[in-house]
């Protein structure tokens, strides 16, 4: 019997003798392991050099210790070329000193600090290759890397000096920037560096408000969880919902509900708030009702819970005066806005005369009231009061019209854009015969006149094409038709290719742009040197009532207003062929990949968007309601999109989004467009 066989026998008899039932599978497993070891490079080396050593695993009961034959203690050889980036040419002579201290044996005084903050993996390797190649070429500097990654192997392996500089976090961004600048100065002085070279990757990733909020939250996890892990988990749930990580939110809410009895009193408010948010986002109305009643004492003291209670637990119709104010004394605008027809003048008078009601929302609520009661002059007065700050003046409106947007006219502002750049405005149109007329007019009447309007009908079966054909002839309008119905985003992709403007932007066929929308955006874009700019909007009902969200605000980001040079869309596009949500996806991509400073939001209302039951955001399954409810397909899309963002835009994640959309029937094949 050879030595290997003897050892195996010994193992079988001593170690697994008490488990005879499993002997067969154990032997199989051991054989597998041995086979893997035999295949390994290290073992191959050993076997070649020390042919006597054949057994892969050796059992050494204490009585056998004395009989062990001596063997080489280390035979593994780490190839020297591991010190070098794969694609960098190696010097003729082997490098003796590590490249971080010298270069080719020549001591170097010049130090360059190279920031690779945010880079990791392949991304970091790429920089190291670049630096090593530059070192080889220049032979005049030595690098000191600054990293925020905890794995220092890439530097250690090459002998490069490095400094660890973790991401600073804090609520005050300016303060963070100042602290970071101080750290940079400190490191520069420490190394006597002549230069600080910024080769940071994913810098924008950490600057993105969602992601930096997560980063700051995680940074204090251990400390806060030692104090109160439920409060920490509640905040995680809030963040998960605000960053549209619905998969995470679902699990976390279930956990918090399950252990709710363990939650200390001090943390209950934040836990209840977060759980309610999740229930609302998922449309669990009955559950949220029960949960709010169960926590009625908290409801009485918290504005947010009170808002939800008044929304879900008091009936859809009729106004109960005790709910018209929040515990803090502020008006419960979200509640009131849905019950204006039941409101008494006295309730509204209290709100508008209240000192705390100096914000614009109560003014808009008053406009809503007069829209609901058909008092045009008073509606116009409060409308103009709400928009006075932005210079938008409503000249006329007919509140008896089916859609008041169709009757609104605005004073033409004197101020034009500071630049004459040509803007291509892209609009898709599907069964929009009642709205596309005013949408087009509001673009053609812009005070920035150097524009073209590219409109594509997406297979409407109403009179949309007739409306478009009947519009006054304007050489700036180019009319297209889809070859087959394909959705807004495929049309955008096709029309971007047709656009001749330096700048490109969009408008939906039921939006009404204020007359200086484009001028303001262009001016802002040029003023702040941004790569892209969006603005804000109000959603408004056909009756003329502003739509409020459950945070009592009406002003929202208008992703549709994204305006950027054509090459930005060519470089970072195309829009995904989705039925919905592709504009937000591209917007977030721009913010992450270009950085927050490059994608600005003009904090002014630029347009009005129609909100009615037939809007896309009301479609079953893909709803995006003002109370925070998101339809199931929209949530699935958001989860997949979050994975894409956090994963650094890998193709596999992008494919997953397409699969998610396709499974829900929301992937729209591109069909192309033709001139109509």
């Amino acid at each position: 019997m050879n030595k290997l066989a003897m050892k195996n026998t010994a193992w079988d008899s001593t170690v697994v003798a008490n488990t005879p039932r499993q002997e067969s599978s154990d032997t199989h497993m051991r054989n597998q392991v041995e086979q893997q070891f035999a295949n390994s490079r290290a073992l191959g080396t050993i076997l070649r050099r020390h042919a006597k050593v054949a057994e892969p695993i050796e059992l050494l009961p204490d009585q056998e210790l004395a009989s062990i034959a001596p063997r080489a203690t280390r035979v593994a050889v780490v190839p020297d070329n591991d010190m070098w980036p794969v694609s960098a040419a190696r010097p003729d002579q082997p490098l003796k000193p590590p490249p971080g201290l010298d270069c080719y044996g020549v001591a170097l005084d010049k130090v360059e600090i190279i920031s690779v903050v945010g880079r990791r993996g392949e991304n970091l390797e790429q920089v190291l290759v670049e630096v090593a190649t530059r070192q080889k070429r220049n032979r005049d500097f030595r690098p000191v890397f600054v990293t925020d990654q905890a794995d220092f192997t890439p530097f250690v392996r090459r002998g490069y000096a490095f400094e660890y500089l973790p991401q600073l976090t804090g609520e005050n961004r300016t303060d963070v920037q100042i602290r970071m600048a101080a750290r940079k100065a400190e490191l520069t002085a420490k190394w006597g560096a002549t230069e600080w070279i910024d080769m940071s990757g994913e810098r924008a990733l950490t600057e993105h408000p969602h992601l930096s909020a997560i980063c700051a939250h995680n940074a204090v996890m251990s400390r806060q969880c030692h104090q109160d892990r439920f409060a920490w988990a509640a905040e995680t749930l809030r963040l998960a919902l605000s960053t549209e990580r619905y998969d995470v939110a679902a699990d976390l809410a279930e956990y918090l509900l399950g252990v709710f009895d363990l939650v200390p009193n001090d943390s209950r408010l934040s836990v209840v708030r977060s759980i309610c948010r999740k229930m609302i986002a998922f449309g669990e109305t009955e559950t949220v009702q029960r949960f709010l009643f169960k926590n009625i004492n908290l409801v009485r003291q918290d504005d947010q819970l009170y808002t939800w209670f008044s929304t879900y637990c008091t009936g859809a119709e009729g106004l109960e005066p005790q709910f018209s104010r929040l515990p803090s004394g502020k008006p419960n605008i979200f509640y009131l806005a849905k019950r204006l027809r039941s409101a008494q003048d006295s309730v509204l008078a209290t709100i508008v005369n209240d000192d705390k009601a100096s914000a614009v929302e109560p003014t808009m609520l008053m406009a809503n009231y007069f829209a609901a009661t058909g008092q045009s002059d008073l509606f116009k007065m409060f409308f103009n009061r709400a928009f006075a700050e932005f210079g938008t003046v409503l000249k006329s409106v007919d509140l008896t019209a089916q859609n008041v947007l169709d009757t609104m006219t605005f004073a033409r502002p004197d101020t034009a854009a500071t630049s004459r750049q040509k803007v291509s405005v892209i609009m898709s149109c599907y069964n929009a015969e009642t709205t596309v007329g005013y949408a087009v007019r509001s673009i053609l009447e812009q005070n920035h006149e150097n524009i073209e309007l590219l409109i594509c009908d997406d297979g409407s079966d109403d009179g949309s094409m007739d409306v478009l054909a009947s519009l006054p002839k304007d050489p700036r309008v180019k009319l297209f038709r889809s070859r087959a119905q394909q959705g807004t985003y495929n049309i955008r992709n096709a029309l971007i290719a047709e656009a001749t403007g330096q700048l490109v932007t969009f408008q939906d066929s039921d939006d009404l742009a204020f007359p200086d929308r484009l001028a303001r955006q262009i001016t802002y874009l040029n003023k702040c040197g941004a790569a892209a700019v969006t603005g804000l909007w109000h959603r408004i009902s056909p009756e003329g009532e502003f739509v409020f969200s459950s945070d009592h605000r009406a002003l929202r980001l208008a992703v549709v207003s994204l305006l950027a040079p054509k090459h930005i869309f060519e470089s970072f596009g195309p829009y995904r062929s989705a039925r919905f949500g592709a504009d937000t996806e591209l917007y977030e991509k721009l913010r992450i990949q270009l950085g927050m400073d490059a994608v600005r939001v003009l904090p002014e209302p630029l347009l009005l968007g129609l909100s009615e039951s037939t809007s896309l955001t009301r479609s079953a399954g893909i709803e995006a309601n003002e109370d925070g409810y998101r339809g199931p397909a929209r949530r699935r899309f958001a989860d997949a999109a979050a994975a894409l963002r956090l994963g650094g835009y890998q193709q596999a994640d992008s494919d997953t989004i397409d699969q998610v959309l396709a499974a829900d029937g929301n992937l729209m094949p591109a069909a192309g467009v033709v001139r109509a």
Partner: protein
Amino acid sequence: MKRIGHIATYPARLDTLPDMLASVVDQLDQIYVVVNEFGRQEIEKLPKYDHVKYIRPIVDLKDTGKFYPRGRTADEFVFLMDDDIKFPADYAETMINFLEELPTRDAIVGLHGVTYSDLFDGVATSRFVSKFDKQLNESLLVNQLGTGCMVMLGDQIPPFEIMRDSQRFVDVRFARYCFENDIVQVCMRRPLGWLTDMGPEESIFETYTRDNHDNHKSEIGIFGGYGKINPKLALAVERM
């Protein structure tokens, strides 16, 4: 039921291994010690006990040595232990008693608990650690237990094949195995200093380097976060 110990060590731990073994040898029926990278001289320094068996792998298995294939059977308690921890005299008894009191059979009891952020971003601070030598007033369900001080039923130890390629992140792979097999991990309450850490003080950088490896980040995504913890069992365990 027999009490079996699994340990993996390497020559640098010859300083602490004898004390560690001495602290548990009378509490267990059999101990298997995988001695990675041991040469003859080091082997001769190993303490000798009748029921301690040393296994020398021909390649360095690192911590995965704790999981070397020797069969999986339900009629024994398996203790996974680190070679730089000194265990108290009532260690095995206390751990087994606690394991048997749990409301589920599918549970592993340990003392070094980690729960990750549900929004884990790969940064080492994105976790809540209850270190094994610190006081813990209430037992907790956690995402991950350190494999340096835990007990389980013998049929719950992962097959070696599962652990084989996780040399730098054994705890993470083990936690993933538990999650995917519906085995809950319970970090048991204990007084301060019940276990003694004999290892060298570990710098934060070393911890980061060890724990923040890209390879295992995706695995943490599978089982990490409070949302991945069974709330009913969490409630029951914390009320024990």
